């Protein structure tokens, strides 16, 4: 195994060397940094050209210049690693250092959401194969495949930002919107749950009415200006979470698991609601989150000891997952409480959804900004890019998870599982879903690396200053060092992700052994 990894790392270095050589020469040959000066009529143009040539070492042919650059990279072994300087004499490493976190922040949420939504939709679509829901999901996925992100972005800016802000200035949902949203949600859930004709009509009517009622209540309670879950909402959601997670994890027939999950969820979300508000105000946020993160498994463990006598592992898992979900809900609730102060800030002035940028720097000029308002500001700026990236990338997961699950469902061990008399839930969640996730995991890892490259356009459209901006600067300014820096990051990520995907595959699927063949 170790020798396999070592061999792969060796190959990885060779690949990075080869591809950077190709790109460097390609970029150096196709660009002429002196072009502007050649046509210039300035008296000192010649002197400028000479100094520029000296700076960029234009006296050397591109392949040799590449090795000058490579010497800096190889300095990693001798301790003086450098990626060179940009044309503005900035260190490329520091430029990348400020840009990478921005890009990661941009793609991180989108990737997670796309994976969760995409896999969920794909699985439902596969379970309802050849249904109307399946066909519309397929069409939807293909439509998303075909959308240029810059085009979606313009639509989002108009309808999700500008129009939504207009709506917030006078948050009254008109009757037509109420009916439309309710109908869409009714049709969607009727398609997801499916069943006999009578059942479908029942679900459709029920969900439509429930959605309409929910929107009406939210509207009446002025929820869009002062959103909050409150202790009532949290209690309801905690119960729902416990039931939902238990159903997926062990099935609600497992009473011990259900009780533990309910106990942990209610302890955090309902009984602990007010104490948690105090906890969330603690000034050391890092320590606080770390503490909460560690607390939940502990609670799950205690609950599993109290409620279950045998088979405590799955019970603890269920309770812990429920606890984490409730924790996220608490976090959201606290963010919602920061909504009104955020809107009242003069920098925001009741138009909270921005169309460009990654945060509002002028926020602090207009009053006291606590941690939650600051976080909300960052989150709000993430909304549009995240939606755009999610829309584009989750279509792939729908298609892929659907295909894989269908393939898995045809396997003999699924028939065996059914023949043993296991419930459909167990067959799908335990036998089929886990095996579906094996190839999916590898795709996800590779995808995450790829999306960093894909963020170039997204950043440009939404005015973020991350890797995309650097890349743009590098291309338009003939800045080879900067270009190679950006490339090195994306390429290293891509090849590393490939390696990790292969290792993960063999770790998840014992039939596949890396390094044995070849």
């Amino acid at each position, binding site marked *: 195994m170790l020798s396999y990894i070592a061999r792969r790392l060796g190959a990885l270095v*060779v*690949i*990075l060397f*080869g*591809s950077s*050589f*190709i*790109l460097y020469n*390609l*970029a150096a040959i*196709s*660009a002429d940094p002196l072009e502007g000066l050649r046509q210039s009529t300035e008296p000192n143009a010649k002197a400028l050209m000479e100094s520029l040539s000296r700076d960029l070492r234009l006296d050397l042919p591109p392949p040799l210049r590449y090795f000058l650059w490579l010497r800096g990279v190889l300095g990693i072994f001798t301790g003086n690693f450098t990626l060179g300087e940009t044309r503005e004499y900035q260190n490329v490493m520091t430029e990348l250092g400020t840009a990478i976190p921005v890009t990661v922040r941009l793609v991180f949420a989108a990737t997670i959401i796309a994976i969760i939504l995409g896999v969920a939709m794909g699985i439902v679509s596969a379970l309802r*194969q*050849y249904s109307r829901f399946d066909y519309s999901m397929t*069409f939807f996925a*293909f*439509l998303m*495949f*075909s*959308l*240029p*992100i*810059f*085009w979606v972005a*313009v639509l989002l800016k*108009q309808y999700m930002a500008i129009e939504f802000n207009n709506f917030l200035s006078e948050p009254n949902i008109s009757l037509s919107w109420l009916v439309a949203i309710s109908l869409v949600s009714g049709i969607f859930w009727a398609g997801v749950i499916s069943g006999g004709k009578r059942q479908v009509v029942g679900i459709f009517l029920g969900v439509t009415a429930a959605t309409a009622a929910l929107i009406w209540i939210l509207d009446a309670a002025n929820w869009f200006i002062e959103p909050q879950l409150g202790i009532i909402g949290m209690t309801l959601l905690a119960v729902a979470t416990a039931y939902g997670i238990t159903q997926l994890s062990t099935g609600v027939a497992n009473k011990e698991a259900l009780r533990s999950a309910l106990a942990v969820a209610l302890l955090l979300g309902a009984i602990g609601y007010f104490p948690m508000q105090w906890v969330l105000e603690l000034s050391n946020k890092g320590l606080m989150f770390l503490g909460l993160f560690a607390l939940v498994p502990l609670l799950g463990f205690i609950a599993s000891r109290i409620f279950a006598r045998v088979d405590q592992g799955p019970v603890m898992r269920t309770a812990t997952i429920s606890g984490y979900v409730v924790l996220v809900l608490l976090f959201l609730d606290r963010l919602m409480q920061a909504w009104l102060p955020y809107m009242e800030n003069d920098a925001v002035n009741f138009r909270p959804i921005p169309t460009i940028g990654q945060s509002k720097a002028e926020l602090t000029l207009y009053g006291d900004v606590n941690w939650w308002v600051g976080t909300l500001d960052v989150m709000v700026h993430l909304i549009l890019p995240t939606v755009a990236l999610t829309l584009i990338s989750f279509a792939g997961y729908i*298609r*892929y998870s659907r*295909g*894989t699950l*269908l*393939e898995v*469902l*045809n396997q003999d061990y699924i028939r065996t599982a059914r023949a043993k008399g296991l419930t459909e839930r167990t067959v799908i969640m335990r036998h089929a879903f886990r095996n579906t996730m094996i190839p999916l995991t590898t795709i996800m890892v590779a995808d995450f690396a*790829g999306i960093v*490259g*894909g963020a*170039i*356009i997204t950043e*440009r459209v939404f005015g973020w200053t991350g890797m995309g901006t650097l*890349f*743009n600067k590098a*291309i*338009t300014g003939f800045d080879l060092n900067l*270009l190679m820096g*950006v*490339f090195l990051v*994306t*390429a290293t990520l*891509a*090849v590393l992700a490939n390696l990790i995907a292969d290792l993960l595959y063999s770790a998840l699927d014992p039939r596949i052994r890396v390094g044995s063949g070849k």
Partner: protein
Amino acid sequence: MSVEKEVMPGDKEDAIRNKETEGLSQSQIVFRRFVRHRAAMISVFVLLAIFILVFSALDFSLGPIQIPGWWKFSYLDTPELRFEDCPGGVTGCPTLDMIPFLDGDGVVVGQHPFGQDNIGRDYFALVMRGTQRSLQVMIIIGFIAAVIGTVVGAIAGYFRGWIDALLMRFTDFIIVIPAIIIGSVIGYHIGNLGAIFLAFYLGLFAWTGLSRLVRGEFLTLREREFVDAARVAGASNRRIIFKHILPNAIGVIIVAVTLLMAGAILLETALSYLGFGVTSPDVSLGLIISQYQESFVTRPWLFWWPGVFIITIALCINFIGDGLRDAFDPRQRRKLSLKDKLSGKRAADVGGSTK
């Protein structure tokens, strides 16, 4: 990916299916399956219609051949801006009216069906020109990538050994560079030479995924008995590759190239949007979206039309690719409709002699 077998196909259904393919060659079976894929067939017709519309509307020259277009404006003309009957005092709104009867004046094409841009250029001509460009770029990229990818993959997979290692390492080198980076590097400096050059260069770097697929296909096919038989009969390497293995790998190639072309049109529009692709005065769909995105609120048609064309083309190609994949997949089984079952049953009842 899209293996859609039924869980437990009954024997009778199998019989019906077998009956359908009796006495047909492989290509006939594939063709029949493809024709039955409704979404793919609709896409074929829509795409054909777009092709005909786009390439006949404006003057189109292919080398020495000059085909005059039937549309009255070219994309460079600047006719007078239309002021009358535009809502909100905007100039140059579209005259196309697709709703019959309901709004009183029936279906009208009018002077400027897609409207005019802010300096009065006819937007129908602009969009047609942009779509022409995008389609040309797509086809050229697809063609070059298909040729290089197939050849590289075939040689690597067939000869194996050091040739394979060399070619695949080279493929790895290129595959690591994200398409958008390599496209920008090329496009920013080649783009002003014209869209055709740009497409040509982009095609030179787009073949890597295909070559890996083809190589994998060749690696399995070359071990099959019919290849041994051909070799024993004295066929040359070239003959084995082109006459024996390639026809068996053609399904994989066609599907991959189709999907590659859908990616190519999106890559071209994205590059042009970033300013690294087709540059003005030439027109491309990505370029006009980027030029007019600011006027989305005042002149929404400047934004919608190019988008509609990009999406329709990409969507059609994706559906065609999906249909082709299903058609070429030997494991693919069609879901029998009630009609099939009935007619199949009747046929079985009469003794299976009639078709």
